[in-house]
């Protein structure tokens, strides 16, 4: 089996695994939203995770599909993924996103801790949900932004 076909097959395997996981996680989230009450966490977080996994699954399946249709494209996509400059860019972006993620999570943890002692205003359940969503989304934005910036400068 050529390395390009193996790459395309791997993308499809990853895609279908993610899709199956997304369906299970998403359905669990929706079911919890519909029937469960008094949960110690917001079930929308589970549904949101399912949607995120579905997005990743679609991206992997699209890569696999494009790779199957054009062998030259497959080879290029494989090279692009393993290209040392691209790997360096992804590592750089990942480090930045990790710092942002850690800082946001730490700040949120501190806020909750101080608010429990009455030193800061308490966060409402909706506010907490949005803060957690921001702690997930912002590092991703930083990751993508850093990749775009590094593509230009590196």
């Amino acid at each position, binding site marked *: 089996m050529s390395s390009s076909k193996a790459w395309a097959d791997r993308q499809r395997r990853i895609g279908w695994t993610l899709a199956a996981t997304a369906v299970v996680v998403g359905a669990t989230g929706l079911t919890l939203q519909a029937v469960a009450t008094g949960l110690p966490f917001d079930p929308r977080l589970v549904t949101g995770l399912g949607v995120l996994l579905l997005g990743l699954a679609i991206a992997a399946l699209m890569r696999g599909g494009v790779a199957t249709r054009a062998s030259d494209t497959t080879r*290029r996509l494989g*090279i*692009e993924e393993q*290209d*040392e*400059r*691209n790997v360096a860019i992804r590592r750089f972006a990942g480090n930045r996103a990790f710092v942002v993620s850690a800082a946001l999570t730490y700040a949120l943890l501190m806020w909750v801790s101080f608010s429990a002692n009455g030193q800061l205003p308490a966060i409402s359940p909706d506010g907490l949900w949005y803060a957690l969503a921001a702690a997930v989304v912002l590092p991703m934005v930083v990751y993508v932004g850093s990749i775009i910036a590094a593509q230009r400068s*590196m």
Partner: protein
Amino acid sequence: MKNRLAELRTTKGWTQQQLADLVGVSRQTVISLERGRYNPSITLAFRLARTFEIQIEKMFLYEEEDDEQ
């Protein structure tokens, strides 16, 4: 670190894509190398030198100020 990649590639009459295919990197990496924006790993540097059949130090020109970056 300076390099003679663009000059050597032009001498061979290769396109950036052809060179990228020969050494197994993306065309964008070849462009970045030629513009001096990206310094290759030692493995890639050796692969490039072997592709052009020259010694590595004839292709990459190390300068003292590289240490300050």
